[in-house]
Structure formats: structure tokens, C-alpha cells
């Protein structure tokens, strides 16, 4: 299954009439190996989750079964953890997007003393090992905010620190490519500054916004290193629950759960890709109202893609 997927993938990538002979062959081999390197671990996980074996050892299964999926879905820490993780990821994504967009906008549009410093500050958390961040926050919560320990808000706040560098740099790059005169033109035409931002700037950075949101959500959802310090062992987010169970048992329940997460991530990415095209076009069409002659759908699709 894996080899067929990769060969189809590389076939499409090298299908353009760009090179011939040795060069094309070398490129094909390279791309196949790279795709294999990326996809093989996923394939092993997915494969073992359908296995009838008692231990997930990475080998070819001796039989097939769906029981590990049932086990995973019935395992209480996973059920609780899934709901918990979804809440944390949603909250952390919302906060980091709101704060990150505002910060990126300020850095991109206003000249003020310390703008460069601020940009550096927002990227700084990247250089700190996540376990250190987690430990520091644990000490902070334990000493000053004991009520934040083990709550959705407390963990989401911690995740925001990890997400902001990414959100600020992605949105900052998108904003830097926009002509500031566009927003000024909107204000000149009677739009208040917030309205000018919503109607003119936001639609144009929508793809970056969606990309940042998807990445932020997945990052928060998968986070273990920092989160593990911030919650008691009897009630944890899903990846922490997976981590804790792996310490006890190595049966395919964990790989079954992982397969479900892989499927979920793929669905999310597909939805995001659709949103970047479809929702953008839909909003533009709504903005257009009814008075418009002609329907240049294709041009719009291209612009928002």
C-alpha cells in the first residue's frame, strides 16, 4: 500500500516534462526515498493498529482485527483526554491567533521604538526547551496560581507561549506583502479602521490565517513536553494520556488511537485547504451583493487560492 502511494506521488511530481534520462531517474529515486522516509513511520503505526497481535512491535501483523480501535475508544483516559485536548487546542488557537494577529499587525504597520526587539521577543520561546517552559510554568502555577494547575485555561495559556512565535511570523510575513495603501484607501472611502481591517486586510491574509490556525491547533493538540508538567496524572490531555499509557503497556491500543488522530489531522488539513479556497470565494461572492453584472468566478478562485 505504501509503495503504491509513494510511486503515484512521485510519478505526479516528476510527471512534468522538465528533465530526461539520468537526471529524471535520480530525481525520481530521491523523491521516492524522501516520501518513504516521511510516510513509513505512519504506515507502521496504521498497520499495527489493525493487527490482532498483543504487542505493537512494528512487524507485519500475524492477523487482522479492529479490537484495538474499540479498546482505544473505550479506554477512559483517552475519552476524557480527547475532549480535554480539543478544548485546550481550540482555546489556545483562538487566543494565539487573536493576540498574534494584533502583534503581527502592530509590528508590520507601525513604527515605534523597540519594534525589532518586540519581534525578537515573540520568537524567543522557540529557543527554550519545552520541558523547561513546562517546569517554569509548573513552578509559577504552584506558587502563584494554584487554580490554573490542571485546567483547560492554564494549559491553553502555556500552549499560547509555544504557538505565538509561529503565528506572529506567519501572519507577519503575510502582512508584509500587503500594500498599506489598500487599508488607507478603505478608510478614505468611509470605512472605520476596524472595518477597513476586516473588509480589506483580513480577506487578503486569509490563507495565512487558516494555515496558522491549523498548525496552532495541531501543535497544541499534540503537545506533551510542556503539558505533562501542568496536569495531574489522573486527568490529562490525550497525548499525555497516550504517553502515560505507553509507560505501562505497549499494546496496539495506542497505535489505534494514533491512527484515528492521523485520520483526524488529514481531515482537518483537507477542510483547511477547502476553506482557504471555498470560504474565501463564498465571502467575496456575498460581498459582491446582487447588483453585480457578470460572474468572474475563475479569477476569484485564483486570487484566493
Amino acid at each position: 500500500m505504501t509503495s503504491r502511494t509513494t510511486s503515484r506521488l512521485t510519478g505526479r511530481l516528476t510527471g512534468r516534462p522538465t528533465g530526461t534520462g539520468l537526471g529524471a531517474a535520480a530525481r525520481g529515486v530521491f523523491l521516492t526515498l524522501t516520501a518513504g522516509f516521511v510516510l513509513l513511520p505512519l504506515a507502521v503505526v496504521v498497520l499495527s493498529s489493525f493487527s490482532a497481535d498483543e504487542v505493537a512491535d512494528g512487524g507485519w501483523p500475524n492477523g487482522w482485527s479492529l479490537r484495538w480501535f474499540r479498546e482505544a475508544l473505550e479506554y477512559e483516559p483517552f475519552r476524557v483526554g480527547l475532549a480535554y485536548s480539543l478544548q485546550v487546542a481550540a482555546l489556545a488557537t483562538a487566543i494565539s491567533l487573536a493576540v498574534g494577529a494584533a502583534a503581527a499587525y502592530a509590528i508590520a504597520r507601525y513604527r515605534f521604538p523597540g519594534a525589532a526587539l518586540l519581534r525578537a521577543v515573540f520568537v524567543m520561546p522557540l529557543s527554550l526547551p519545552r520541558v523547561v517552559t513546562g517546569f517554569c510554568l509548573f513552578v509559577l502555577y504552584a506558587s502563584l496560581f494554584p487554580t490554573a494547575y490542571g485546567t483547560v485555561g492554564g494549559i491553553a495559556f502555556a500552549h499560547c507561549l509555544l504557538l505565538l512565535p509561529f503565528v506572529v511570523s506567519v501572519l507577519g510575513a503575510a502582512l508584509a506583502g500587503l500594500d498599506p495603501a489598500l487599508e488607507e484607501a478603505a478608510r478614505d472611502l468611509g470605512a472605520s479602521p476596524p472595518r477597513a481591517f476586516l473588509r480589506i486586510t483580513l480577506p487578503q491574509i486569509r490563507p495565512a490565517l487558516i494555515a496558522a490556525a491549523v498548525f496552532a491547533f495541531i501543535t497544541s493538540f499534540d503537545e506533551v513536553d510542556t503539558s505533562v508538567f501542568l496536569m495531574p496524572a489522573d486527568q490529562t490531555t490525550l497525548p499525555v494520556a497516550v504517553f502515560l499509557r505507553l509507560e505501562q503497556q505497549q499494546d496496539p491500543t495506542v497505535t489505534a488511537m494514533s491512527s484515528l488522530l492521523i485520520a483526524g489531522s488529514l481531515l482537518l488539513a483537507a477542510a483547511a485547504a477547502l476553506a482557504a479556497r471555498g470560504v474565501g470565494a463564498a465571502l467575496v461572492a456575498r460581498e459582491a451583493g446582487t447588483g453585480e453584472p457578470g460572474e468572474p468566478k475563475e479569477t476569484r478562485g485564483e486570487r484566493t487560492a
Partner: protein
Amino acid sequence: MSVPALHADGVSKWFDGRRVLDAVDIEVREGEFFSLLGPSGCGKTTALRIVAGLDAPDEGRVSINGTDVTRTPAHRRPTNLVFQQGALFPHLSVFDNVAFGLRTEKTAKREIAGRVEELLDVVGMAEFAGRAPGTLSGGQRQRVAMARALVRRPQVLLLDEPLSALDLGLQLRMRRELRALQRRTGTAFVCVTHNQAEAMEISDRIAVLNAGRVEQTGTARELYHTPASRFVAEFIGENNLFAGATADGLTLPADHDGLLAVRPESFRLAAADDAASVGTATVRSAGFLGPRLRVVLETATGREVLVDAEAGATTAAVGERVGLAVAAAQVAVVPETAVPEAAVPEAGLPEEGAVREAAS
């Protein structure tokens, strides 16, 4: 006197400790085509942005039809701006670009459609309503930008170098269109430009800006014939400037010992011993420009003098010594001002290279 459509009163602006506008006074009359003319960096765009409300003045007041708008934000001012590159919204169609300014004021849908179509018709873009801005040419984009700004029926329309991004042929045609558009709407237009020919052709009045100051305000004729400063004398058209009545080997008919200006077409070539001549000079080059002959001469002191003579009636051989004649009325007295020479006029000699080539 009636209330001016736009009055900028003592407007000053600093950027990073540098004064870019220095007590600028501008009065634009109702229904007037007014140009702010100056070299790049003279502050003309800043002045326009202050009128639009996109920048705030550090000193002075701005009023529109008698209403003080100095503290009014851009989106509540009765002005609209045509941006230099058009600044069309790339994610909206031509129709939606023009309709944008009407939707912000909650105009009824049917009225929006009517007004947008009317304006697109005025600028000749009706058939492009459904197109995306990215698919339009420079001239088409600029027409849409004008329609978008005019659809709100501003009391003053502001234009920031509206034609500078277009190629020369299109510029010349758009000048006439712009002028016709202004006549048709009867709106006061304030147009920023660095192109003196453009300003002279389309404006009722012009304010010449240099280094953040208004050097002179007047009609093209006034600026041309009675420049109020050395800068204006050099920036508007071409001029021969002399430090005094007896300078550079010439004796000009003027009883003024300050700066004097004589237009190239005001000099007349005469015989070297003509009693009416104000001095003699040697022909360095002569170039045929169609109706005129551009003659470059050199006086005894080595000073270059430009003369435009009627091409049909003049012969000027290179190396020939000729007399220069000029009527007293054609010698303009230029008031000397303490304004620093901050900028060099961008309008150089027309076809200078071609003249030299033709002469050799």
C-alpha cells in the same frame, strides 16, 4: 469672497525631527482644478495626505467648505483620494471596488448599482464591471480608481500623481480626460504632481511647493510670466537668469539690480552691431524643433544663453557672433528669497542631445 472649498491654514509637519511642511497655506476655490506642483520630496504628497486625514498636521488647520476638519478622521471627511498606483482592492471586482465607498455609508442596494454604473460609464469602464483589478491595464486601473473616489460625491477630490504610472502617450490623453471629468462633475480637484507641463495644461491654479513651502500660487500664466522666486523661475518652463541688469556681458533693459529672468522665446537674434541689442554672443549650437529653432549661445564671459527663435525666419551658424535683443517688458524681476535650493527642477532641457547633434 465665497468660502473656499479647501483651506489649509499654516499647516506644518515634522517627520523624524525634519520639517517636511512649513506653514503651508492653500486655498482652493469651489469647482476649481488646483495642482500642487513640486519636485519629489517637496512635501506635496504629505500635504495631500493631511487634507485626506491620513496624516495629522503638527500645526495649522484644514477646513473644507468652511468646516474645520483638522481633527476629523479620514473616514468621516468629505474628501476622497485617488492613490498614486490606484490602490484598488485586489480581491474585489471593479464593480465592488467602486461600490465599496457607498456600502460603508449604508446606501440602498438599488441606488448603489445605479451610481456605480453611472460612474463606470463616465470613466468609460462600464463593460469591465465584473473584472478583477489584476486583469486591467494601468490606464484602466486609474480610471476605476477615479470612479471609486468620485462615486461618494466628495466635496473635494484629491489626486496623488494620478498619471505618473502611465506611459507618455496615455498620460497626454488622460490629462484631457481628467480635465473633462473635473468640468463634468464640477467638483474641486486637488492634484499633486511633479510634472509642470501636466500641471500647466490641466489646472486653473497651481501652488508651487519647494522644501515644504509654498513658493507661489497662481495661474500657469502668472507663474510663467511673473515668477515670485528663483525656484519658480527655474522650475516652470525654461529661463535665462541673470544676477543683475549688467551681468554676463549683457546690459538688460531693467532698472533693477537683483535677479532678472528672460525666457528663451523673449530674446531676439539681431546683427552683432544692431543698436537695439543688449549685447553680443557666439552661437554654440542651433537645433531645429519644428516651429522653433533652439539656439544655444555663449556670451563674452562664457555664460550660456538659451534662445528660441522662429525657425522659418532665423539662420544661425555655429561660431557666428550675433546680437541679442529683448524688450523691457519681457524682462521679469525675480524677488530673491532666502529659500534654500533644496531641489533641482526635474524638467531638463527638451531634447538637448538632439539639438547638439543637429548642430554639429
